[in-house]
């Protein structure tokens, strides 16, 4: 077994994801099978391989240089706040975070 019930609970905790008892067991079994399959990568010796952390070739990443940090007008604040489940004035309201 690659992944235990405990592992799934821990990961769900990290991902802030509520899972039901049924989901927990189904995902555990399915992910176990997937990880078993992924294990085939160990057939390959990659000790000397550089990880591919960037898709664009070096000559294209030159494009991705940082722009000047200048303020440009942005008039969507109202629209953005309108999407919030619980906005108050210019703020997003959330349940109390600090215990006293």
């Amino acid at each position: 077994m690659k992944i235990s019930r405990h592992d799934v609970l821990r990961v769900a905790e990290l991902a802030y994801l509520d899972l039901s008892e049924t989901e927990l067991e189904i995902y555990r079994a399915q992910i176990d099978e997937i990880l078993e399959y992924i294990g085939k990568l160990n057939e390959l010796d990659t000790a000397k391989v550089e990880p591919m952390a960037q898709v664009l070739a070096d000559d294209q990443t030159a494009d991705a240089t940082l722009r000047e940090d200048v303020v440009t007008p942005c008039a969507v604040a109202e629209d953005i706040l309108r999407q919030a489940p619980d906005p108050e004035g210019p703020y997003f309201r959330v349940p109390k975070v600090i215990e006293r």
Partner: protein
Amino acid sequence: MTTNWTINSVKEAIAGKKVSARELAAEHFKRIAARNKEMNVYLTLCEERAYAQADRIDADVAAGRALPALAGVPIAVKDVISTRGVRTTCGSKILENYVPPYDATAVTRLEAAGAVILGKTNCDEFAMGSSNENSAYGPVQNPAAPGTVPGGSSGGSAAAVAADLAVTSLGTDTGGSIRQPGAFCGIPAMMGSYGRVSRYGLIAFASSLDRIGPFARKVEDVAAVLQVMAGRDPNDSTSTTAPVEDYTAEMRKPVKGMKIGIPKEYFGEGMDSGVREKITAGIELLRKLGCQVMDIQMPHTDYAIATYYIIATAEASSNLARYDGVRYGLRQESDTLVSTYRKTRGAGFGAEVKRRIVLGTYVLSAGYYDAYYLKGQKVRALIAQDFRNAFQKVDVIVTPTSPVPPFRLGERTNDPLQMYLADIYTVTGSLAGLPGISVPCGKICGKLPVGLQVFGPAFGEARVLQLAHAFEEARGANI
């Protein structure tokens, strides 16, 4: 009513005042009203926006002004691409009422070129799936093969074009989500190179893989839509300044002498015999066109699915962290902030998305990062190297798009690994960042569409289109 419009026939009809852009939009909305209930292709229509754009085109015609490249062309947009003021759900309950405050650059460029956006198309939730059955809004019918899935994740966009409910459409491709539904619905479908089309406004699934690309009825229409979208966008730092070729002109060049690599690894076990027969006939046709067909080797192909599902889920788990019920989307109120996050995400995401978040968080978590994520990045480098080696010898690579033809709705939903394995021929090019197209290659027993896939080197879109176009022109109805 005329059907099966193409960009050229729209252009001629509008310029020749045979039809107005408004009439053309209305004709499409009429068909959508008649068929969408059964097809489930569109999740949201934007008639007001479409008619406003159509009226601008009609005013240009009346005033005798020059018409832009896509003037009056009705287009459907996958529901993971932001449209200002038009609901964008990503096929998820968590964004059921989300209305983006801005347009994706692809959308802005299409509208600037005169395209008329009809609405937003159904897709697998957050583009995660290969059958469109992971949409929170129900499955889509495949118009080319009733009773089967249209493919995924851009199933709605593929079906919209195939069912004549749009002239072209936009999809997104992370591991095959444009090419495979194109193959299943029997139409051309393309992703350009990583960096070719701006992703500004594309709601992220896996950022090192996601790309936007077109579906159409003809390869030349795919080329025309890609042309309009391609090129540097200051709002997307991964879009490049690499020159954009004139696809329509390049596409018409003869293919005689073009070197085509056929990787034997793409014809292994698990391939449907009907698909094999059609693709073999397709390759034979390429030979008749004077192409030099040669066998090549891509030894790491068999590791692509494992690599892809590490990298894609890892990136997804990170990208989807933003859905927390605070700034937009669903909120399940609870007494603490953390339990609000947990309940919101537990209630808002569907099964496949949750499965991928769990898997992706696991492969990135302490103690497993090196064994999975880092290993995946290293094998990704080997897969990209396979392609670079191949393109030393050949101009393009030809493969099947999918090992299987369209399958029955519901046939594969209970076995995620089996569903993933069917992405084997498409994920390789996704991992390597290369351009790829799927073009129709006949139907098995006259019923189930098969797609032939063409890969090119980075920024070799023109070459890919050139071969696809020649193939489409040469192909009779019977191979």
